[in-house]
């Protein structure tokens, strides 16, 4: 059995890994979250600006593998301009994708994120892909306080 490496490390993912348009910190953040993956020592620092229930901007920084960084970048790209309800729907869908759902892999709502479908076959790496989403969920809680 061969693993889906060509699909996981495809150009689109490497583009997000190497030159994400969403690196950095937002101005006037409503929430700032530092998440760590103690397994590998990787970290992510996520800042979010929320106005009237809409995520106006979200950016990330930190160190991590191509999977974690690309997934965080794609997440930011998707979340900008969305309500938390819209973001929850995509987050659930993305989780389905990471659990190997073929239906999710065909769902256009996931956009570029579908490129990460192959990660479902690398179970040890699913946590990497979820790191940004975990930080975003924490940011939502913080912003609500």
């Amino acid at each position, binding site marked *: 059995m061969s*693993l889906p490496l060509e699909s*996981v490390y495809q150009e689109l993912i490497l583009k997000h890994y190497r030159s994400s348009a969403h690196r950095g910190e937002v101005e006037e953040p409503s929430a700032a979250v530092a998440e760590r993956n103690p397994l590998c*020592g990787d970290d992510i620092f996520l800042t979010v600006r929320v106005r009237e229930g809409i995520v106006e901007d979200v950016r990330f920084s930190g*160190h991590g593998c191509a999977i974690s960084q690309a997934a965080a970048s794609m997440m930011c790209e998707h979340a900008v301009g969305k309500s938390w309800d819209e973001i929850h729907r995509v987050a659930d869908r993305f989780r389905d994708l990471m659990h190997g759902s073929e239906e999710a892999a065909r769902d256009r709502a996931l956009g570029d994120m579908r490129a990460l479908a192959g990660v479902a076959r690398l179970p040890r790496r699913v946590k990497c892909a979820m790191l940004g989403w975990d930080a975003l969920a924490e940011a939502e809680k913080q912003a609500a306080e």
Partner: protein
Amino acid sequence: MSLIAEIPAVLDAELIRADFPILQQEVNGHPLVYLDNAASTQKPRAVLDALAAYYEHDNANVHRGVHTLSVRATEAFELARGKVAALFGIADTAELIWTRGATEAINLVAWSWGLANLRAGDEVLLSVMEHHSNLVPWQLLAQRTGAKLRFLDIDDQQRLDLSNLDELLTERTKLVSIVHVSNALGTINPVREIAARAHAVGAVVLVDGAQSAPHLPVDVPSLGCDFYAFSGHKMCGPTGMGGLWGRRALLEAMPPFHGGGDMIEWVELEHSTYAPLPNRFEAGTPHIAGAVALGAAAEYLAGIGRDAILAHERTLLAYALERMSGIPELTVFGPRDPAERSGVISFTLGDVHPHDLGTILDAEGIAIRAGHHCAQPLMRRMGVGSTARASFYLYNTPQDVDRLVEGLGRARKLFGL
């Protein structure tokens, strides 16, 4: 590869591989190449047989019963202690205490010797190169006692920087605890010299031997230290099994670590007297099968010869370093002189994150370690978040190195390097 023919055979790795059943398998459609030996080594048939034979024929509790199985179990348990002591040149087997591993051995010294001997203002000298298991116990102890931790730094080749050792060693230094061989880099540290200089100021010296016991022909008394901690599963033995050697005078003056059965002489409701060494530090039913199997591992390694194992690893190391030096954007950490390192290669490849590298190599059936190697302060000191690490043992071959180099080529291609 033409280079392989030039490698002198110091031991027959192909023959040795036949002793290790786990190596005879495919992973992700490729023959397994196991290069994660610094994390844990594989077990030869002799060790697996010793485990099974103990449970099939001799299993009973030790040091208690008068019945035949208990007598046999006790004999096997103590015979194993003798075998491991012999491997390390330890003449007085009562100075060898079984523990769950090197981590528990270090914790034993920290909590038993440390609590009894350290006061506020005393100092413990460690290094930035230490594994978490030789940092966190001392942090906990420092919080409890008010003792201070001080640290040796590393130089630009990730060797210990001893230039300020004389300033760090003072009359306040009560303990020096240093790793013999770095798990993250393979650096071999001059522990004999450090021990001699530490003794000159009256400090007690612990050597973390988790990575030296399996790979160097260690003769513990000649290291000049006072305690030596080691781990069984890194030297062909079972997990959950290891040991602590300590000087008799120090051990006898130390209060017990764990209380319970087996470590006592006489128990009253309010107080007890304790058993002599080594049982005094071995409370509860021990990992008897583990000790027996570790004894078999010690015998196995002695039979092959630890000088031959070291020479074999050095040959593989030299071959791997040469082949890897031809890979663009590959950075190898650690001392440049192979005589200063064991068979460990810690490296990074361009902007490929070590975890991605680990996944890509795993797809080729190659097991390496990627991450911080339980040495986060060292990684920070080196200015990297993590590294990839390939580590050799007696059953690795030049072909394993070739497979690793091919796998790194695939990673470069996938990442467009």
